[in-house]
């Protein structure tokens, strides 16, 4: 059976025109629309087979009920629990997660904390002049990727939405456009750019400042070389920006997680505002996981804040640096953690992992990963977008509903969390809290 309009649950591109061949309740072929990574996810790979609880150092398979009871017991007893992940699951699950965090007074945080969190802080400082990806496709004649390498990380991005795509005023595709890539090394994306600006590691802030100055007409204050880039090349970039009818800057973790962090993004946005005095100019973060944005959305409308929210006071307390996951772990504050649809074992600094090894850890995930190696309770989940449906937010805030294409025995994240929440409430009621 051929299923059309399948939505890819991999990266922030959320391509929604996949065609998938399903036979005997199995994805046999991805016929259209997906990049190689998206295809690989749809075709499936090593699953966590069964719920399990660690006993004497090794995971012992158990029933869903037992794993859920064990997880609820850990969370109900914890004084400073952390609930982290949430970016590779659907908004419906995120909502239950926030309710669970509220119930137990947990800190809830998503992967933005170690990814585009600095972008959020910058937006809170200066705002974000942006647009949907279809605007870029139809109108943009200048595309800038800065500290981002879509050819490898968001493989369909240029084809569907930006440099290569064809739209209303861009019917000739890349012939109608210019592509500037700014990076510290010559990435695959840089190789296809019209202009590649190679900057020195950690000098993004300076280069943004120089471009801002030039856009605002202060050529005299810009030295002959800034961050490894000649003034001539900077002036050429500014000429392209001013001459564009519609410009867009996409920025990645090369900017958010290098020297300067959120200050880089503030400056990038200020550069966009400066460019906007000449022409239409927008800017957009290249969000990684398919629903990292969705968690930030749900968390914002429910708690008032997008990530790193501490609910121990009964109301939301937001102070990244104090209430962000790695900081809490490095300070050894947490006494229990739940990780869902994520892998801190691979992504968090060693010091926080050392603390995680000492506290009870619950993992909810379809797939085994390094976190499984130290998790005390492991709960397998259905794969969102293949085995269960739900809402996600693309990197440009467009909500799209993931489709279910095959059936599964595994429970969806939302249902697992609801059961844990129910169990936690039962425990707390018994204890008279």
């Amino acid at each position, binding site marked *: 059976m051929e299923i059309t309009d399948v939505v890819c649950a991999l990266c922030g591109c959320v391509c929604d025109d996949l065609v998938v061949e399903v036979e005997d309740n199995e994805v046999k072929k991805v016929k259209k629309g997906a990049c190689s990574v998206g295809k690989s996810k749809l075709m499936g790979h090593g699953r966590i087979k069964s719920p399990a609880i660690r006993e004497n150092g090794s995971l012992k398979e158990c029933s869903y009920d037992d794993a859920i009871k064990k997880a609820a017991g850990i969370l109900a007893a914890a004084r400073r629990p952390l609930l982290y992940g949430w970016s590779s699951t659907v908004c419906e699950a995120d909502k239950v997660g926030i309710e669970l965090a509220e119930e137990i007074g947990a800190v809830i945080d998503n992967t933005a904390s170690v990814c585009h969190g600095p972008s959020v802080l910058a937006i809170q400082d200066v705002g974000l002049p942006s647009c949907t990806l*279809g605007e870029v496709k139809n109108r943009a004649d200048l595309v800038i990727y800065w500290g981002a390498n879509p050819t490898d990380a968001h493989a369909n991005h240029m084809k569907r939405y930006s440099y290569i795509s064809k739209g209303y005023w861009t019917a000739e595709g890349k012939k109608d456009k210019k592509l500037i890539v700014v990076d510290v090394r010559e990435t695959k994306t840089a190789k296809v750019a019209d202009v590649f600006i190679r900057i020195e590691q950690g000098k993004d802030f300076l280069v943004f400042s120089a471009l801002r100055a030039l856009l605002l007409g202060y050529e005299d204050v810009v030295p002959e070389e800034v961050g490894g880039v000649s003034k001539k090349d900077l002036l050429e970039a500014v000429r392209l920006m001013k001459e564009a009818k519609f410009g867009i800057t996409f920025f990645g973790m090369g900017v958010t997680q290098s020297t300067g962090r959120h200050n880089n993004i503030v400056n990038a946005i200020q550069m966009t505002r400066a460019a906007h005095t000449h022409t239409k100019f927008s800017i957009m973060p290249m969000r990684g996981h398919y629903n990292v944005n969705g968690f930030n959305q749900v968390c914002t409308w429910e708690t008032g804040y997008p990530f790193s929210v501490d609910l121990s006071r009964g109301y939301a307390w937001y102070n990244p640096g104090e209430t962000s996951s790695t900081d809490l772990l490095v300070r050894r504050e947490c006494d229990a953690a739940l990780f869902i649809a994520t892998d801190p074992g691979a992504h968090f600094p060693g010091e926080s992992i050392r603390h995680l090894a000492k506290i009870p850890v619950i993992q909810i995930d379809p797939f085994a990963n390094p976190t499984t190696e130290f998790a005390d309770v492991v709960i397998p989940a259905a794969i969102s977008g293949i085995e269960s449906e739900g809402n996600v937010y693309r990197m440009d805030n467009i909500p799209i509903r993931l489709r279910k294409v095959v059936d599964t025995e595994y429970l969806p994240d939302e249902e697992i969390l609801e059961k844990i929440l129910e169990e936690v409430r039962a425990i707390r009621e018994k204890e008279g809290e």
Partner: protein
Amino acid sequence: MAEGELLIKNGVVYDPINGVNGEKKDICIRDGKVVEEVKNPKVIDAGGRVVMPGGVDIHSHIAGGKVNSGRLFRPEDGRRGLEAKTKVCRMQSGYSVPNTFATGYRYAKMGYTFVMEAAMPPLAARHTHEEIVDIPILDNAALPLIDNNWMTLDYVKSGDIDLLTAYIAWIIKATKGYGVKIVNPGGTEAWAWGKNCDLNDTVPYFDVTPAEIVKSLGEANEKFEMPHSIHVHTNMLGHPGNFGVTMATYDLVKGIKPSKDRQVLHATHTQFHSYGGTNWGDFESKADAIADYVNKNEHVTIDIGSIILGDTTTMTADGPMEYSLYQITGRKWTNHDVELETGSGITPFLYSGKSPVNTIQWAIGQELALLVKDPWKVALTTDHPNAGPFIGYPILISMLMSKKRREESAADMHSAIYDRAALPSIDREYDLYEIAIITRGMTAKALGLHEHGKGHLGVGADGDVAIYDMSPEERDAGKIQKAFLNTKYTIKGGEIVVKDGEVVATPAGKTYFVTPECDDTLTEEMLKKLKDKFEHYYSVTFNNYPVQDAYVPNPYEIKAPMRG
């Protein structure tokens, strides 16, 4: 809806739709609806207090992409409204951009039971509905933005009103929306290139004018028996001297016959569109001219969009307007243009009584309410949160009811109010009957919701009741304000949801949406063009676009047949 019976006795009832003006009257409710009599009810003794139907807000931004972007980029606003969870309530945050839970609780405490989300970008409609589901208590609906859509612009240009009719039917159904929202027609499309449009300018590349867009959508809307008229944010919002454009826009639809007994055009947040002068230096109120137009014509209703002094978060699909505002203040600015459809901008703003312009703006909103003679033509709003947060409604009610309070306030503000505004010279004071009209009766009628049990307490109406802790004789403005901020009781569908100013139950609200029933042949013809737009220009597929039923768990469908 609560099962069982409820009797509210000894209340002084203001139910304008049924002509009830301050009568001592019992209200009987069974299974969530108002009935003639009850046999074995739970009894609430209103003790001579003021009783009104649940409030109906005609225009407020409470859910969706730009509201959430406002929350996200203003953690400082979040901190102004933190309240811990209780046994009944979830956590609360925010003042001008409250979280979804606080939105439901605070409206309910003011006695409101229905709120219209006033701007839903069709492509992001799922987002609006996702948030609406998280707003407790309130019944709700949302108006999709239809005026800058390329489909609309194409059909306006070609003059195919029938196909435009088919398109608006499709998009209202696809978004689970309630009617036709127009925001800076043509101007928002122009903003995608960094430009704007006045009423008779040509929209870049599309060869149509905003005036043609308004007129065509006005005609198309009346092809169906739509509960609501077109809902219009006119061009040039916030520009000195815009009152002429505002009235010229009203004139465009004057000859159109409404398909139901209501206005042809609802003009929203009219305060922002009633400006005289040529620049910020000679800026003055033209509320008198706008009110005069409304007094002399029957096809237009307005809501006031009155200012609440203090800091707020402005947000609108009128992208160029927000850019202008950000250029004035230099504060943070978010913009989000939406492909083929609309845009939006957000920036914080402080309305200061020390500023001559803000002072005159403050006067204009109240002048509109006081100078429009027939309260059935005017609704109380703050265009939440643009002119101020909805939590300021009780302040406005007390102002409209007390000339003394207005005089006291004006004395603390910029003296421009005495030279360039009319407010100090107006003696009129609203009575409670008129307050009930502009907060429930008129709004329910203008939205066509009175036929669906909202805004009144006649037999068959929803059992939505507000009991305010004040006697009808109360004249103290401070006490009036206090009473309208926190009800003695708010009853929603026969269930007590607020008691003594505290939320005691949080049932889910219903989502009202309209299904315009368009001729199949026309729809097929229209779909050819629409599918081509999806094929080539949208970034999502045609099949993934419509809002799925899962997003509207508590639906209330209103069918709008084609006019015979």
